[in-house]
């Protein structure tokens, strides 16, 4: 089985004054199709930087990122935008719905960027909203919806382009614990039922435990990887490859 995402020796170095700050200090790992990955760490650990680089929002200082056999670390901004439009769904912490559009228009927006006709994209948006259980809220404006509902719209928007990978940046950060469980349940269901790949960033170990595999990041290093042994996809990977997914772990000394 071939990994969908390959990361090798990834560095991100910020120059703050004359000091060099290593936000990411050489991480290497693989992610397979169908996995639900959680990158866990405290704030400042480098977990968000890692996600941003995987999504092509930030350029790495050094290292290789290969997604679906494409070197995204070598792409320019226009190519990255196109790559995201074709392959990547994104779920934000603060939902980031466009306030002037209603729910269904928000969901359909990524298809509009692809130049899909109005009828087609509305149909697709309707389909995914029903899948997520908010099919009756298409006409609502974002400010009329609760946080949980808005995040569901956000998830539907990430799904509408039929992406290979979904990135989620603290998707439950602004939700109460009850809604958090609902949303995570939904995300997990989508990953397993729709065979998506999801990479989620969180600071909460409890939330991270929903994932198939956790990568714990401290000071720019992966210090621990936790595999959920009961997860079907992890069992399958182990069966096919004979070993757990590749990941360089640098334990804290």
């Amino acid at each position, binding site marked *: 089985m071939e990994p969908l995402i390959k990361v090798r020796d990834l560095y991100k170095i910020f120059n703050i004054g004359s000091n060099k700050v290593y936000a990411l200090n050489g991480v290497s790992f693989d992610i397979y199709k169908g996995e639900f990955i959680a990158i866990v760490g405290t704030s400042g650990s480098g977990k*968000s930087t890692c996600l*941003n680089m995987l*999504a092509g*929002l*930030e350029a790495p200082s050094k290292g290789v990122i290969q997604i679906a056999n494409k070197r995204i670390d070598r792409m320019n*901004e*226009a190519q990255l*935008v*196109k790559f*995201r*439009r*074709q392959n*990547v769904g*994104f779920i*934000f*912490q*603060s939902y*980031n719905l*466009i306030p*002037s*559009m209603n729910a269904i228009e928000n969901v359909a*927006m*990524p298809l*509009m*960027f*692809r*130049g899909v*006709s*109005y009828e087609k994209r509305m149909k697709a948006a309707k389909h995914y909203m029903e899948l997520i259980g908010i099919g009756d809220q298409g006409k609502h404006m974002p400010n009329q919806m609760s946080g949980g509902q808005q995040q569901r719209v956000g998830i539907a*928007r990430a799904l509408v*382009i039929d992406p290979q990978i979904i990135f989620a*940046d*603290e998707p439950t*950060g602004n939700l109460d614990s009850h809604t958090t469980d609902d949303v995570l349940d939904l995300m997990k269901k989508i990953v397993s039922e729709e065979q998506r790949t999801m990479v989620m960033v969180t600071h909460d170990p409890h939330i991270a435990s929903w994932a198939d595999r956790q990568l714990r990041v401290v000071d720019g290093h992966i210090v621990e990887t936790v595999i959920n042994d009961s997860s079907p996809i992890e069992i399958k990977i182990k069966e096919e490859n004979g070993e757990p997914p590749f990941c360089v772990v640098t334990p804290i000394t």
Partner: protein
Amino acid sequence: MRLYDLFKLALSNLTRRKTRTFLTILGVVIGTASIVVMVSLGLGMSQMMLKSYQDEGSLTMIRVYESYERSDSNDKNKSQTELTDENMERFKTLDHVVEVSPALDVSVTAKAKGGEGDFTIRGVSQYYLSQLSLRDGGEIPKKDQNELSLIYGNQLLYNSFYKPKSYENIEIDPLKDTVFLTFPASSYSDKKNTVDTDDQTAKKQKKYIIPVSGILKGGRDDWNQNSYNAFADIDTLKRFLRKIYKKALVPNPRTTKNGKAYTYYVYDTIYVFVDDMNNVKDVQKQISDMGFSVNSNMEWLESAQEQLGMVQMVLGGIGGVSLLVAAIGIMNTMMMSIYERTKEIGVMKVLGCDMSDIRNMFLFESGIIGLMGGIAGLLVSYLISFIINFLTSDNGGESVSMFIGYTDGGGALSYIPLWLAAFAIIFAIAVGSIAGYVPAVRAMKLSPLAAIRNE
């Protein structure tokens, strides 16, 4: 992204901040209106001027005079630059010349209704006469008719006659009132011995009543270059004068070296008619090169238009400044809009919106501001133009038209042709797009990371 979607997105973004959009558009409205009104004033003035020159006389006519610069040269040359029939024929052979007409002027003193007046009878060709427009019932004197008949200029009737002592103006009507004309005494005598003065006075006193064949169109205040003269057919006039002045032909004939009066006519002016306004200058130069002194209304018009061009540029510049201010307003609005929507733009970029689409969306927004401002500004300009024309028309304020200096009725001071209207709208859109370009590019280059940041 589809063009329609871009347009819709831009429009919905504009309607989100209605007051701000309205104010920005208002700036463009004022800018466009001031440019259009200013240019329309310039155009209206230029049209009025053209019209007033046309009123004064045809723009295709050249007046030829004898050149005074050469009058001191020897006789041989002199005869060549005299306005004789021979020279007139030479003019006629020039390219683009349609017709020529001599003008033979005779000053007369007239008495009517107890008043006195002086004016000039100008003998001209049939062609010239046919160019005159007469009041209803008048007719143009025939060529070489038996009896001399006159066309009176319209202003002769009102302004030329006055009471001898009080100098009060008298209005006459040649059709009803009898006008007695006195022709000047001849300054020439072919007899060597001096003529008895009594005889001359007696001659001077002889009064003629000359039939009226018509009156020029126009009222008391309608001035043109013909309105203070009386006109007659040249051949008839010549014959009439020969009866009075015999061999001298005219009251003040030129004489040869040995004191004899010329046996041919020397005209005061020769009018040359050219086929087109644009050929006037060319023909004028040719005649001037022959040694004659020439002028034409075209020449004046050109220099006047040159001056007016300056005025137009100043007016347009004033309008341009206000449109420039409006452009800065658009830029400001777009910049603010981008700062407000930084996060939104970031989200769109994360979700795969092309950079060029983002730029185009903002260009559309500023373009729409320009378009709306342009259309509204044009409507406002038409309104202002209407008001200006209303105020400066005859029933409006005199002071306004006095200030402008062209008081001819009929012409519109502010004139908005179709091309100006089209130009105004296109220009407004262009200004909007250009003003929006820098903000749009800035929006395009915004980092998608802004979307990730959580406030």
